[in-house]
């Protein structure tokens, strides 16, 4: 490609990997990204018309001026040569055409669930199950409270045994970190099994 032969003296770029933080609208995705990110979460906005949407697909969007879809993300420098990005996925179902791009090449995903309205995260769980993208479920307690044990939630969500369910508080750095570690442990476990 153009320019590659000139790159010898350039500062070497790190390897990059990503994890998606998914779940229903307002479930705490950006909160989780922000609690573990080393930078204040950044936002990019994509005009829907440029993302290949037909005009008809814009019907039914609540407000006519809702013509962009926002993506919030954060960064964790793992080492000098490896950087992890965390992407909060757009919560609205109709913006899922963006998810295929987002999900491409992701290590895996965290699906956040709000115990007060778990159904808002059903679609995210379906999305990752259908595409065979590994995920864990983080149950984000309202004000950090957890009225139900993890096993009840697993049952309610009809999750297979290998998918971990963790009670968490997306506002807390350690709690969010532990959910990410659980995802990586799950990936390592299935890699060792393979």
């Amino acid at each position: 490609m153009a320019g590659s032969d000139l790159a010898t003296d350039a500062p070497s770029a790190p390897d990059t990997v990503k994890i998606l933080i998914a779940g229903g609208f307002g479930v705490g995705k950006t909160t989780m990204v922000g609690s573990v990110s080393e930078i204040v979460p950044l936002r990019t906005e994509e005009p829907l018309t440029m993302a290949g949407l037909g005009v008809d697909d814009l019907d039914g969007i609540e407000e006519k001026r809702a013509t962009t879809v926002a993506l919030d993300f954060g960064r964790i420098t793992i080492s000098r040569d490896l950087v992890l990005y965390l992407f909060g996925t757009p919560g609205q179902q109709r913006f899922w055409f963006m998810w295929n791009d987002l999900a491409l090449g992701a290590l895996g995903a965290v699906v956040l669930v709000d115990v007060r309205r778990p159904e808002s995260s059903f679609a995210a769980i379906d999305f990752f199950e259908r595409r065979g993208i590994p995920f864990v479920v983080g149950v984000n307690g309202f004000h950090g409270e957890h009225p139900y044990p993890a096993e009840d939630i697993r049952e309610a969500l009809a999750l297979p045994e290998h998918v971990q369910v963790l009670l968490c508080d997306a506002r807390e750095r350690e709690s969010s970190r532990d959910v990410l570690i659980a995802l990586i442990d799950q990936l390592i476990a299935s890699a060792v099994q393979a």
Partner: protein
Amino acid sequence: MGGGDTAGRLVRPFALTGGRTRPNCADFTLIATVTAVDPPPANAARPQPEHTRILRLCAEPVAVAELAARLDLPVSVVAILLCDLLEAGRITVRPPRPVSRTTPDLDLLQKVRDGLGRL
């Protein structure tokens, strides 16, 4: 950051790319890393203002998504501008670390695990 008055913002990105809505190259996905070539090629043409802003932001390696956020431009627009710069030999691009579902990279996973453990 961002948001707000979208009516006025849609025009500008298209204008920046000379009306193009698709990039000429597929290199610039969200976490591809971009680095300015320094010093620039001897025969380099004088870049457009938006190109200059990008070159300044990627003096050190930076991911495409971060560039887009810092420029307050859609990733799709930034990708087009980056293709211009790549063709002009002004930047290099490093693709994201490939992730395979069939043959997972245990070494990579362990590195991520250790890094998260240090948080």
